[in-house]
């Protein structure tokens, strides 16, 4: 069981690196979407007995993170008529190297932290740290609004991964609420991006400079 789980988490960690290394925005969106779907499957693996709430959260996660949000982003992409991140603040190779270093660091860090016996062999904690870091890197290092939103999604995926540590003991109601909030958040982000695109004729956040001291 832990092996299947670790396989999926390893896949998610690989997708981090893919998102960090790629300059084409559609592949960044795809990486975030596939990662979201992979993570959506995990509660089904962890939870042993059948529970309708678990299924609801899993299906909800897969639909929202795998289909609804990526479609929203692709639509914004088409409207803005852009395809690439041209001048990232942190280059693709440096961010890939940083991401890889963070993955190794996350494994080392998780080794030093006290874990419950049932989580001892799993990649949940290092996977979560590495994913959160990759999300941050995208959020800080890219200038296109869409890349930043993908960074935010990957950051949320990492936190979601950590939340799975608590799945056996805390009510899923909270997780359902979190999923709902995330959906609304990205929806609102999508609307604002649409308006920024109309007002500024670009989704380049470098152009958002009229507010400063």
């Amino acid at each position, binding site marked *: 069981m832990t092996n299947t789980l670790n396989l999926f988490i390893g896949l998610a960690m690989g997708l981090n690196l893919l998102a960090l290394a790629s300059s084409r925005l559609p592949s960044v969106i795809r990486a975030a979407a596939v990662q979201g779907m992979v993570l959506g499957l995990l509660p089904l693996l962890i939870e042993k007995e059948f529970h309708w709430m678990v299924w609801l959260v899993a299906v909800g996660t897969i639909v929202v993170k795998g289909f609804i949000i990526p479609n929203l982003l692709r639509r914004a992409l088409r409207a803005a008529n852009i395809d690439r991140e041209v001048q990232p603040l942190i280059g693709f190779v440096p961010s890939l190297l940083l991401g890889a270093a963070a993955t190794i660091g996350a494994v080392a860090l998780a080794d030093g*932290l*006290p874990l*419950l016996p049932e989580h001892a062999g799993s990649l949940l904690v290092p996977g979560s740290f590495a994913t*959160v870091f990759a999300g941050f890197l995208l*959020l800080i290092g890219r200038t296109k*609004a869409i890349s*930043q939103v993908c960074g*935010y999604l990957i*950051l*949320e995926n990492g*936190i979601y991964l*950590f*939340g799975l*540590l*608590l799945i*056996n*003991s*805390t009510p899923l109601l*909270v997780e359902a*609420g*979190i999923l*709902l*909030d995330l959906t*609304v*958040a990205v929806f*609102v*982000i999508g609307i*604002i*991006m649409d*308006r*920024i695109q109309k*007002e*500024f004729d670009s989704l380049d*956040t470098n152009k*958002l400079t*009229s*507010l400063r*001291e």
Partner: protein
Amino acid sequence: MKELALIAVPFLVAVVAFLWPSERTRPWLLPVAGVIHAGLSLWLLIAPPVLAPGAWFGFDAVTRAVLPMVSLLFLVCSIYGVAYLKLRVERKNRLFVFALLVLLGFLSLALQAQHLGLLWVAAEAATLMTVPLLHFNGTARAFEASWKYLLIGGTGIALSLFGSFCLGYASLNAGGSGDLTFGALAVQFTKPTSQVSEVINLWHPWLIAAWVLLLAGYGTKMGLAPMHTWKPDAYGEAPAMVGAMLAGGITTMAFVAVLRVKQVVDAAGASAMTERTLLVFGLFSMFVAALFLLGTPDFKRMLAYSSVEHMGILAVGAALGKVGIWAALFHVWTNSLTKGALFLSAGNIRRAAGARNENEVSGMAWRSPMSARIFIAGLFAITACPPFGPFFSELRIVRAAFEAGSTFTAVAFLGCLLFAFFGMTRLVFAIVDGRPRAAARAVGDRFRETAGVILPPLAFLGFSIWLGLATPSLLHAAWSAAAKLLFPTP
């Protein structure tokens, strides 16, 4: 039941507002909700209910010490809102009124939340509901501010979710059953301190990680430096009443979240760490705010930096033990209500002048005399001149610092206040005095200082004086009860 009504009434009125057909009469729903909400919270303030053990939300001592203030703030802002939206007939107000009411509902939920996860969900939802309020003006600058608010606020709230999970995991490691209500968490961490250090080692790293992440996350919502960067943009672009609700409502919610988490971490015996970090963040925020206040040319952004400064004051207060927490809760009231007067009068001045920069605005004492007078009085109030409320609450924080034996804190605190005073008086008198500009004359003729836009800020000033000179004993008792709950050790 009344606790639930505090949350349900705004939501219900919000639905009604969304379906309401008339643009002209819809804003009147705001004061309707405000009056009911204020009545309910006054009732609960006088006769607090007993909190059921293990409840996910309820009106406990901490809620009692702050929620009536948010309710009062909303009530006065809602009355201003009717007059404001009448001036803005060219913009559709359906979404604005709806979002404002939903925001009130989520603020009531977040302030009453006794469960770590529920608190997060409510805080995130409240953050999202402010976005439509921020870009009500529909300008490019407003969208830029909304984008920055979303990105910084969203990241902050993601960090606090991460921190909440870490705290939950720490409690599992401490032998907890997964009950994430604040009371249960505090008990779980108190138990093992008598045991051997090996048990503590199991959860201590997670606890520290949780505190750091939660403080960074909710600190971003509060606007503590260096996570304050969304504030000037958001406050600068938002309509005046939204600024007042952000500065008095959202930040109060985040401060209460920090206090509740601090209570849990303190129970685990880490109060030295929480107090030191809060003190550092607090003094740093005051310092950064004082620096920017000396330089900013924009009087709406000035209010944002003043808010950063006062969040710093709250953090310093929270770091100074029971007396400090009491004073901080007092300051939550005085600061929020005084800020209300400043934001609303600044909104009037902004409309009368058609600009917000000191290079473009002057002579407002002639163009909008009442608003300018309220703005000056508000300036002296917020920079802690007697007899206004902030003077008394800040005095108590300084006294708490001296009593705690940290003279450095008190001296740094007073120094920052002094520079903030210099910065704010410089800017305020630059826009109030002098001769009116030609540009302002053209716009100014359209703006009339009606009772609807003058009485609400005047009421806020009245509250500020009243809190300073005659603090009701009921509030004294409420703050003492909350301080006792948050800081149980004598």
